[in-house]
């Protein structure tokens, strides 16, 4: 493979700085710092390691409605060659089911990758479906939960998962690779990487119109899922203290554990 690897990335609110409007039950995003979804960084890392061995281009691709570029600079600082951001206010009410179509169009128009890396999990859960969904739309094989990857003449061999068990699998190019969480440690940006990341030639911004999908498609962007309400998880613990005869205490504790699914259950 001599061409391009794309990495799907998404910015998410910093989990340690979430802000919820209790009246509306909505996340307050203004003033909240964002980060790149941590598992996306792991996907990017696998793409970069593969590049180090095989020499292709790595392009990070993001679909967003705010036009924010900071997180993409971070990906460039880590070592991605280029970044493509498709941004349009119309994307505000989308979810991965609808975004998958946007990514597909962006990849086909601007990136032409032979391999697409995506996270298999996400800090906000929703994003975790993008890999398999995009693979389906592209009609490409999906390598599930890859930990290691080798490129061959026209295909990939990977240590991955079949859905049933962990295995060495094989797939032809072009393909989508979803990257296992927690196995690959992403590299840190270097000062040199950061110095070079803000070169304007490396970041391209496109709009919905640039995708060439037509006005009717815009009407079908609406998310299929709808978040009805959010709330911050309570931090105060509801404490229950059990005192008394040792055996009785142990019995109550055991009951509580079992009720919550612990003890005697199969992993």
């Amino acid at each position, binding site marked *: 493979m001599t061409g391009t690897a794309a990495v799907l990335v998404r910015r998410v609110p910093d989990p340690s700085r979430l802000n919820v409007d209790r009246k509306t039950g909505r996340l307050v995003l203004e003033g909240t710092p964002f980060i790149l979804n941590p598992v996306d960084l792991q996907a990017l890392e696998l793409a970069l390691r593969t590049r180090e061995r095989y020499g292709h281009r790595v392009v990070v691709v993001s679909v967003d409605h705010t036009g924010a570029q900071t997180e993409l600079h971070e990906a460039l600082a880590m070592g991605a060659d280029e970044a493509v951001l498709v941004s349009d206010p119309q994307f505000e009410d989308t979810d991965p089911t609808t975004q998958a179509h946007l990514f597909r169009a962006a990849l086909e128009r601007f990136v032409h990758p032979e391999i697409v890396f995506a996270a298999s999990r996400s800090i906000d859960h929703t994003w975790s479906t993008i890999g398999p969904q995009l693979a389906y739309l592209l009609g490409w094989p999906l390598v599930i939960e890859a930990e290691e990857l080798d490129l061959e003449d026209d295909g990939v061999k990977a240590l991955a998962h079949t859905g049933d068990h962990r295995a060495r699998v094989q797939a032809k190019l072009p393909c989508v690779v979803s990257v296992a969480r927690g196995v690959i440690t992403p590299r*840190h940006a*270097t*000062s*040199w990487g950061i*110095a070079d*990341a803000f070169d304007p030639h490396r970041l391209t911004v496109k709009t919905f119109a640039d995708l060439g999908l037509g006005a009717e498609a815009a009407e079908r962007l609406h998310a299929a899922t709808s978040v009805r309400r959010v709330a911050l998880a309570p931090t105060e613990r509801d404490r229950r203290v059990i005192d008394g005869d040792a055996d009785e205490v142990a019995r109550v504790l055991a009951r509580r554990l079992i009720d919550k699914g612990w003890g005697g259950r199969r992993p």
Partner: protein
Amino acid sequence: MAIEFTFTPQQELFRRSVRKLLRAEIAPRVVVEKEGHGVFPSEAVRILGAHGMLGVPIPREYGGAGLGEVGYCILAEELGRVDSSLATIAGAHTSIGMTPIWLFGTEEQRRKYLPDLASGRKLAAFALTEPTAGSDAASIKTQAVREGDHFVVNGRKLWCTNGDRADVIALTCVTDPALGARGGVTTFILEKDTKGFAVGTIEDKLGIRNSSTAELILEDCRIPVQNVLGQVGLGFVVALTALDGGRAGLAAGVLGASKELLDIGIEYAKSRRRKGEPLANEQSIQWRLADLAAEIQVAEYITYHTAALVEEYYHRLATGAHVPETLREQVSMNAASAKVFGSEMSGRATETTLEILGASSVLDRNRVEQAWRDQIISEIYEGTSEVQRLIIAREILRKGGTQ
């Protein structure tokens, strides 16, 4: 707004990246040794070097990141949060060891030394202080006598951070005793394996134990003429310029340490309870935290303002552009103020946090206890607080007021 004090997106990205790197790879490696000299954090230094953190202000063309003095101070602040020893090692290397070569070196010298230093492949140090010349830098006695195409150096240097393992040392000596500070002092680039150079005692210290502080012994040490930095007689300017700028980095380091101490104090006060109420609800605790927070605000502005001034100053020096006297004065004044205020503030920060944490703060190998021991040196090295005050006094008296 007429006066802007915000960081650029690139600087903010740099800070976030540095913080991530330090938290993931450096903080877990920090070891607090109580016996012996402490342990030089070789692995941590290597990791910093590999990520380009040992040449931040040096221009790209010489292998640095070209992120300027402001970028360097961001790194120094984040290092100060994590480990003062490491901040000291990096500071001695970048700020006062390597920077003089960039500012005053010939193109040849820059290309010969900077790339290795900026990547961390080699380590730098700065040697000025002697047994009889501490605050009074002008009374150094190490002599360098010209003999053909070498200078022969005899003398002793003290308190040289990184001195025991630096590959390259900016060494300041007397070349003409009659001229004294004005024209009689020269700075040399001394390479580690030069004949006649030896490392003497390595000091046991109360704080910053993991940084090595060494005595250097020069006995008929022959340094080639090509290793004169700047020119013969310019040594005092070279050394003091480095120290002036170095104060910005130092101020950033103690700023970071103070912020970390405040964070520890806040977290502790919020989570610990006295008589059923969090400590943070007590007014006396709130006042102490507030005082420290206000001082940190002040220190932050002056530190980065100084960094921006130093950045401009260095840029002009390095490119041979004219340096207005006012710029030099501003650097001097701000650097001294930032250093004295910041280092003394960090002393108050350790006290405040110690008091809030109470008994648990003096537990063995506790971060606050270590911070208390590390803090003291900040009021002493790179010009004691008294020296900073003299600098400031000289400036304001000369001017006759604040204008």
